[in-house]
Each structure stands twice: as structure tokens, then as C-alpha cells.
């Protein structure tokens, strides 16, 4: 029951928000609506923490399993469960949603009711993605995520929001809908072997497919997930979506949604099609490495902070994909860890950029400069988040990148060596931006009297910064919990191939 509660609590909260908001767009109810939404998301976060607390780290399989037949005709069931891999993504979702609600506090006044509604619906859908272990159910959540995000970008975004929203939804749909075909095909392929088609992930593992089928199914799955990640060269929707999305949208998009792609690779694409995986893994890894370098280089020359962070995500997620492709314990654990890190640090970066653009209504780096003198506290937080993002040891980012590199080095030393140069480039682009924004003299008079962090913004920054450091100092807490499950997945892949 716990998982169902966690998944549907935000949805119930969303309906509650609609009730609390009354009919129409009523600004006087804004406070109530925000409070309700934030309260619900906090309760959901508490629930995810409770889940973590009750989680048995020694158990490699799924826990808190709920399995009810749903459409028994097709072998579809309402099958939820978490293991060490999804647990933290669930917690991350719970963690970031209140933050993103909070960070839109000042900037979003246009129909807050609807905004909060979509945010909570989005949370539900994302949580659903991470806890579904039935492919059909997974796909439903997977696709359902698109709609609220589409609205968040399209309604509350910036100038080219419609273009970005439409591009976002269509691009990701193209990939995922091919996956749908593959899911169906897989289910029937399983059906022809075992006599009963099923969408249950655990039963589908190890389905003996012909090579042709396995290859194409894998590609369909992989493309869907890689678009979501997004891996070079499927990434171009991301900068647009990020730049145009409201801060909260960017935070969720970068923080959680991109992880849906990498999560999908690890949970579905790789273990379901191990032969195809071992055949294609080098190519995917190659793309990941190209993406690491490419994303960093392109990020370096962006004039727009959000775009810069967006391209940096391309680079960071390249590491994650590389780690996943290595299929070594360190690589995979590092990748999962890096997903969490990226959620915290890039989420934090987007929050900070959002704070700046709340104040100045621009995201162009050139408009800023010398902020450190004006807003020392904000800049201090900015610094920490930046450091976390460029993987300075002691911060969370390092653990992830190090483990990934370590794992993939054992697999493909040369490729990894190239990838490791991303470490240099990330310092270049992040510090360059940081310097242009915060150092030097205040050149633009408009920046002269900007207020420093407000209490609300402290409430945003403290958890982010605390997590960035905590996860850098005590990674074993997380790694230990995910290890049995990761071992299991690796065994699943290795059990058949390699």
C-alpha cells in the first residue's frame, strides 16, 4: 500500500488544490493554494523518506511490492515495487518537488492553482515511472509525465515557450511511441514462448528472443530512453525546453525527468535485451563520450545561463550513460549516484538562475557581473552548487563521476580517458560563467541594489547545499543500499551475455 499511497498522494493533492483554488483564477486564494500544494508535496516527501527508512538494504529484489491484476486478458497488472535503484530516485522526486514549488513562489502568479495542480500531477507521474515494474503501467506513467510538463513549459514559460513545449512533447513522444511498439512486441514474443503474454518485467527478463527481434526491440527502447536522457545527438529539445521552462519546470525537468531516461536504460533496456546490449553498448558509450565533450564545449560558449546549464546536463548525463554501459558495479552505481547528484546540483543551479532572473528578468550572462559584492550569500550558495556540479571532491558530483570513470575504465580505458577530459571542460564552462556573473565590478547599474537571499530562498538553498555536501561526504549510505540491487541487475545482464 505504501507505494500506492506515495504515488497517488500528490495526485490527490492536485485535486485538493483544485478544490482549494475555487472556481476560476482567483488571486486572493493564491496563498491557500500554494500552502496546500507545498504541504502535500512535503507530506509526499516525508512518505518517501519513510519508505527509505523501512527499506531493507540487504534485499536485492523489489520491496513493498503490490501486485494486482489489472487487465488480466493481456497479462497487465498493477505491479509496483522499489529496489535499491529506484528507491533513491523516488526520494529525489520527493525532495525536488517541494523545492520547485517553493522556487516558483515569487515568479508565478498567473493561475497558481493550475500551476500547482500540474506540478503535483507531474510528481505523481514521475513517482509512478520509478516504481512501476509492469511495462504497461510504466509506459502509462512515462507518457503521462509529458502532459503536465508540456503545460508547465507552455503556460508559464518564457518567450518561445510554445515552440519549446511542442518540441519537447513531440520529440520525446517519437521515441517513446516506438518503445510502445517494442513493448507490445516483447509481450507477445513472450506470449508465444510461454503461452501467456505478460507485461510483468520480472517475467519478461530473460525472454528468449530471436536476434532480429532483440536488436530492434532494444533499439526502440534505447532510443526512447536516450532521447529522454538526452544523449547526443538526441539532445536538442533539452536546451529549448530548459531555457523556456519556468524555474520549477527546469528544476523538475533536469532534476528528475532526465533520470527517467537513464533509469529506463538500466531497468528495462539493458536487462531485457542483454545480447543486444552487449552488441550496442560500445556505440552508445561512444555517443555518451561524444556527448560529454560536445555538451561541455557547447555549454562553454552559451550566452544564456539556462542554456549553459542545459548543455552541461547533456555532458553530465553522458557520464551517466557511459557508466551504465560499462555494466560494472562501480560504473552502474556511479551512474545511479550521478543521477541523484545531477538532480541536486543541476536542480540547484536552475533554482539559482531562477532567483537571478526573478530579480532581473534576464538570464543572459552578460547582463550580470559583480554580484558577489551585492549578494554575497546567494553567491556563496551559487559557488557551492557550482562546485558540486563540476565534481570537486568532497561534493557529491565527484563520487558519481569517479565511480563512473572507474567502472567504465575497466571496460573501455581509451574511451574513458577521453570522457575524463570532461572533468576539465566542466570546470572551464562553469567557472567561466560563475566568474562572469559574480566577479568583477558591478557593471550594470540594475544589479547594484539587488536583494540578497530571502527566507524563502534560504529554505531553497539550505537543503540543496546540505545535500550536495552530505552526499559528497557520506556516499556509502546511498551506495550500500543500492549495491545489492545493482548487483542483481548486472547479473541479469551478465547472466545471459558476456
Amino acid at each position: 500500500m505504501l507505494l500506492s499511497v506515495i504515488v497517488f498522494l500528490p495526485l490527490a493533492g492536485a485535486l485538493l488544490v483544485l478544490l482549494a483554488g475555487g472556481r476560476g483564477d482567483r488571486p486572493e486564494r493564491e496563498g491557500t493554494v500554494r500552502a496546500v500544494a507545498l504541504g502535500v508535496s512535503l507530506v509526499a516527501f516525508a512518505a518517501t523518506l519513510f519508505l527509505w527508512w523501512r527499506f531493507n538494504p540487504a534485499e536485492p529484489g523489489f520491496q513493498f511490492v503490490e501486485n494486482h491484476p489489472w487487465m488480466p486478458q493481456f497479462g497487465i497488472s498493477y505491479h509496483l515495487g522499489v529496489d535499491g535503484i529506484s528507491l533513491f530516485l523516488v526520494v529525489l522526486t520527493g525532495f525536488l518537488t517541494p523545492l520547485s514549488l517553493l522556487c516558483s513562489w515569487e515568479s508565478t502568479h498567473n493561475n497558481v492553482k493550475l500551476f500547482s495542480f500540474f506540478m503535483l500531477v507531474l510528481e505523481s507521474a514521475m513517482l509512478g515511472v520509478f516504481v512501476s515494474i509492469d511495462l504497461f503501467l510504466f509506459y502509462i506513467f512515462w507518457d503521462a509525465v509529458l502532459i503536465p510538463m508540456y503545460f508547465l513549459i507552455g503556460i508559464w514559460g518564457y518567450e518561445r515557450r510554445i515552440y519549446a513545449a511542442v518540441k519537447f512533447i513531440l520529440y520525446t513522444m517519437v521515441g517513446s511511441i516506438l518503445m510502445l511498439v517494442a513493448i507490445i512486441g516483447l509481450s507477445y514474443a513472450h506470449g508465444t514462448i510461454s503461452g501467456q503474454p505478460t507485461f510483468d518485467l520480472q517475467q519478461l527478463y530473460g525472454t528468449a528472443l530471436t536476434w532480429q527481434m532483440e536488436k530492434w526491440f532494444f533499439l526502440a527502447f534505447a532510443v526512447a530512453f536516450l532521447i529522454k536522457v538526452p544523449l547526443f545527438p538526441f539532445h536538442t529539445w533539452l536546451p529549448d525546453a530548459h531555457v523556456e521552462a519556468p524555474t520549477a519546470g527546469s528544476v523538475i525537468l533536469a532534476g528528475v525527468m532526465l533520470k527517467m531516461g537513464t533509469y529506463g536504460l538500466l531497468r528495462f533496456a539493458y536487462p531485457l535485451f542483454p545480447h543486444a546490449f552487449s552488441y550496442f553498448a560500445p556505440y552508445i558509450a561512444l555517443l555518451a563520450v561524444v556527448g560529454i565533450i560536445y555538451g561541455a564545449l557547447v555549454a562553454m560558449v552559451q550566452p544564456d545561463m539556462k542554456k549553459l546549464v542545459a548543455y552541461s546536463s547533456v555532458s553530465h548525463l553522458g557520464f551517466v550513460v557511459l557508466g551504465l554501459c560499462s555494466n560494472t558495479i562501480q560504473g552502474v552505481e556511479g551512474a545511479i549516484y550521478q543521477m541523484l547528484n545531477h538532480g541536486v546540483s543541476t536542480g540547484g543551479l536552475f533554482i539559482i538562475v531562477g532567483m537571478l532572473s526573478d530579480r532581473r528578468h534576464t538570464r543572459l550572462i552578460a547582463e550580470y557581473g559583480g554580484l558577489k559584492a551585492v549578494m554575497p550569500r546567494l553567491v556563496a550558495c551559487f559557488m557551492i552548487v557550482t562546485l558540486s556540479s563540476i565534481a570537486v571532491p568532497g561534493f557529491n558530483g565527484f563520487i558519481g563521476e569517479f565511480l563512473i570513470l572507474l567502472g567504465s575504465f575497466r571496460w573501455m580505458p581509451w574511451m574513458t580517458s577521453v570522457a575524463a577530459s570532461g572533468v576539465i571542460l566542466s570546470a572551464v564552462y562553469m567557472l567561466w560563467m560563475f566568474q562572469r556573473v559574480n566577479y568583477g565590478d558591478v557593471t550594470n547599474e540594475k544589479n547594484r541594489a539587488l536583494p540578497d537571499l530571502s527566507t524563502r530562498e534560504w529554505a531553497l538553498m539550505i537543503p540543496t547545499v546540505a545535500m550536495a555536501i552530505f552526499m559528497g561526504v557520506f556516499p556509502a549510505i546511498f551506495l550500500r543500499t543500492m549495491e545489492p540491487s545493482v548487483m542483481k541487475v548486472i547479473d541479469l545482464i551478465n547472466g545471459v551475455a558476456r
Partner: protein
Amino acid sequence: MLLLIPLLPFAGFVINALLGRRLPKSISGGLACLVMLASLAISAASVWTLVSHPDIPWLEATYYRWMSSGDLQIPVQFRLDHLSALMILVVTGIGSLIHIYSTAYMHEETDGEYARYFSYLNLFAAFMLVLVLGSTFPVMFVGWEGVGLCSYLLIGFWYKKRSAADAGKKAFVVNRIGDFGFILGMLLIFSKFTTLDFQAVAANVNTLPVEHSMGWVTVATLLLFLGATGKSAQIPLYTWLPDAMEGPTPVSALIHAATMVTAGVYMIGRNAVLFQHTPITLAVVAGIGIATALMAGTIGLVQNDIKRVLAYSTVSQLGYMFLAMGVGAYAAGIFHLYTHAFFKALLFLGSGAVIHALAGEQDIRNMGGLKKALPITYWTFLIGAIAIAGVPPLAGFFSKDEILWRTFAGGHRIMWIIGLVTSFLTATYMFRLVFLTFHGERRHDAPAAPAHPEEEEPAAHGVGHAAAASASSVHSSDIGHRASGIGHGHGAHLHDAPPAMTLVLIVLAIGSVLAGLVGIPHVLGGGNRIERFLDPAFEAHEMAPATEFQVSESRVRAGASPASEAAAATREPTAEEQGDAEWMLMLLSSGIAVAGIVIAAYFWLRNRKAAASIARGAAPVYTLLLNKYYVDELYNALVVQPIKQISTLVLWKGADAGLIDGTVNGVGFAVRESSGSLRRLQSGSIRAYAASLFFGVILILGWYLLR
């Protein structure tokens, strides 16, 4: 207890970072000094514990599991052996002094900035101690990057000044290039040994034969060495260090002279067993070291910024240390590291006192005759200069001579000769600095000194280092104000620095005189105690029983292996036959040092015109040296700009926006266009519709009939 050593400065950092803004200077500065002194005390106690138990090779403390993933188990573990013992004493000792010095030097800053400064400084000390104490590569790497970070923060401390911010970033990025190598080195080692513990690696590598051709150990050590070149400012990654002089002078003393930049040397010392297995790498290390030493020495000869001269001198001395490492004289290298920490810190702090007195002036062409006005500064500075020049019996002589001797004894004659030349250069440029700064007449045009220090900038600097020169103009709030506070900083009002600073200078001067005494070589009857002290650290040991919980990875551990004994054999020259040679060389190098001083005295004390005419006569060379061989420009033209241009034009505008996104949008466009043209078929004419219908019928029937 080991944990407290870095933790105390870290606590100082946390307190100053969080509360510093609201604390008065006395408290924030006092706190910072206090934690450093406490750390020093604990270090001393720890070292005493270690030394008093000769039977145990090291003290070890494991705190918790940091990274744990499959066969990768990285505990947070500190290990105090003799090498790190020396290092923590240097770090906490010199660090404490510089903290004390800074309380006065930075006094003109606002409370918030003051606290920020000390918080960074404390953080630096903490990371440096982690670097030194860490028992595994990753833990060391935490400190390694951490000190880089602090260096970044401190170089850019006066962030409003663009050049400072740039220099900080440059330092970080260049260090990152090194770190890239370091990481790859770690990965390679782990992939072979599945451990990253220094001792375990050493034990493992001892089971392998010495690698005489390009094997993976060579590759790994070269990669690690790349990291060292970044951190320790060696060719090709040295360019950040001179720029780093944008930071406050005490920072230069602590980070960019005494401690952080020596981390590369330390790291090689730490992995002596590993490096000992690859003659190729050792040759590279030595070669790079000596080349750097020479190059930096030549550049130092013509620089006009007092701190830059010292910076190049640092680079040069670091080159010596790497030379020592490269020829297998690990103890000698570390010895030089240790003595260098004293006299280079002294020199930097002395230059800080000068700058302080001159209200931010850093150009030695505008100095002169400060001997009388700043006597303590002068004398301490002079001691430092003598020490670095290598005049016996000051500290520098023993360490540098040891290196040169080992180079010679190891058969590296060319390197030895270059080393001598460099030694000569060192003496020359150091005394050029001394003479230009303290002797002669004050060239600073006193009446012209403006009332507003902001406008003090000597516009015609020639070197093009407006950045350095503009120090006084931009961060007027610090040095400029201080100058006005001290009495407008010119003429008769010049005087020595406040007591906190002079005290530190004096202590360091004493150190520079005496520090070498621990390393008096055998020929001089000293017994080279430092070498005996350090040697155990350069060998592989059985893993000592863990003091706290230990990772239960079973590893193959070899004891002190034949290989390391063989290595020891090369280090221990059979004393008797070589005694004479060593004497000779000692005299030679002392003589060269003295010669350098004399030359310097001739050109810059006696006959400055001669110096100028030589400069004119060899104008191309002079310009080349003045512009530091154009390396920065070269890097800029070959690496930085191409990357920027390619990223902007090819990757972003071309590939990303044009090709990839163009394809994506092109699909959308194609759909729209085909929609636009297909809908023309829907012409509205009923005949067309009927035609379509009939067409369908014909196709269907035709398919059936003609199939």
C-alpha cells in the same frame, strides 16, 4: 587524534564562513590562528608519538567507509608516516605563521572580507592536511582538489578585480588538466590492483618487475606526474602560478610557495615505490623538473614585479625538487621542499611587507633604497635570498646541494650542469631583486605620488602586466587604504610592518638559517638525519595492523622488497670514494652561488647601465624572457581560442543549431510543408474528389485483376 589535525582548521573555516560577517576582526582572525596553532600542537604530538615508536612504520586511523562499491572500498583513513609527519609540521607550522602574519596584513579589509579570507585560509589548511594525511589516492585527491579550490578562491580573493578572478580561474582550470591525469592514473592503478591504498599499491607493485619499457606502470605514473605538473607548476602547466600572484601576498607565501605547489612533489614521494618501478617516468620527471627550473630561472631574471620574480623562483625551485624525485633522491627532494617552505615563505612575506609599506607598489623599478626604511624587512629578506641562493650554511644550501650531488652521483651529468646553471641564475635574480629593492636610491618619485592611491598606477609598465600593476588601483579598499592609514606611504613615513608581520619574518628567517641543519650530509659529519627519517616512507611495508576498523579486502602484500633495496642502493652512494667528489661539488655549488651574487652586485648595485646595455644588446632574448617565452600567448592561440571558436562556430552554431537541431526542425518543417502541399489536393472541386474516389477504385480493381 589524526582527524583533529585537519578538522580543527575546518572548524575554523565553518565558523568564520557562517558567522564571520558578524565577528570583529580580532575574533575571526584570532580564531583562525588559534585553530592552526592547535592543529600544529596536535601535529607535533602526533609526530612525537610516531617518532617515539621506531618499531611502527606509521600511525593510522580509519573513520568510516567513504566510497564503497563492489571491490572498490575507500575508507576515510589517515595515515601518519614519516613523510607526512614532516609535511604536516610544515603545513601547520608555516601555516600558523602565515595566519599570524595575515592578521596584520589583511587588517584593512572589512570585517566580512577579513573573515572570508581567514575562512578560506583555514579551509586551505584543512584540505592540505587531508592531502598529506590521506592513506589512499581518492582521499588524497580530496585534498588535492580541495587545495586547488582554495587556491582558486584565494587568488580571486579580490574578485572585483578582473585579473584576479581570471587568474583564479586559470589556476583552477590548469590544475584540472593535471587532475585529469591524476584521475586517469588512479583509474589505471585501480584497474590493475583493485586497490588505491598507497601502501597496498606499493606492496603490489613490488611484486612486479621493474618496467624498462613503456608498460602500464609507466603510463600510470606519467599520468600521475601530469597531475603533479599541474599542481606544482611544471612544464607544461606552470603558467598559472605567476598569474596566481594576483592573490594576497600571504596566500602566495602559503599556497604558492610553501605548501600547495609542493603537493606534486609530495605525491611522487608518497608513491616512490611506484615511480621507482619505471625508469622512463623517472627520467621524464627529472627532465621536466630541470627544464622547468632552467626556464623559470631565465624568466625570473628579467621580471620586474617583485612577486612574479618570486613566483618564477618558486617554479624553478619546484623544478629542483622534481629533479630530485626523478633521480631517485626522494629524501633530498622532500628536504628541499621543507627548506624551501621556510625561505620562500620568508621571501614572499618579506615582499609583502615591502608592498605593504609602499602601498601596493609591486614594481621593483619603482623601489630602491628601502634598506634603511625597512631594516627588519631588509635583513630577513636578505637571509631568505642567501638561503635560496644556496650559500652555506643556510638551509637552501644543504637541500639544493644534496639534490645536485645526487644528480651527479646518479650519472645525470647534463642535468647536473643545468642544475648548476640554474643555481647560478637563482642567486643572480634573487640578488637582483634584493639590490633593486633595498639598495640604491629610491626611484619612486615621491612628490609625484598622488594623494589618491587609486591613481598611483604606473601606466607605462612596459611588460604589459597591467593586471599586476593595477593591484593598487582596483582593490583600493585594502592596500590603498592601508597606505593612507600608515601615512600615505612614502618618503620618511616608510617603516617596517606591524609586529605581527615582523615577528613572523624573524621566525622564518631563523628557520631559513637553521632548517638545513637536519640534513647536513655525511661528509660534513651531519649524518643526514632527515634522510634516515624519511626513508621508511619511500618503501613498501606490510600493512600495519589497523587501529580502527579496516576494510577487509585481502590483498597480496609484499614486504620490503628487493627492488626497493636496490633502489636504496642507488640512493646510498658508498660514502668513502665519493666523499671527495661530494666535497668538490659542494664547493663548486657554493662558489657558483657566490658568483651569482657577485654578478648581481655588479650589474644592479654597481653598474646598472651595464645591465641595461646588455638588455639592449640582446634585445630579442630580453623580450623573449620578459614575455615569458610567449607561452601564455601560445597556449591562448593554440588551445584556448581554437576551442572557443570551434565550440561557438562549428559545434554550437554549426553542428548543434544547424545540423542536429536543423534536422529535428527539418522533420517538422517537412511535415508542415507536405501538409501545405498535400492539402492543395483538397481543391474543393467535386470533380477532383470524384477523381480521387475513382482512382481508388481503379487501383483496387486493377490490383486484383492485374496481379
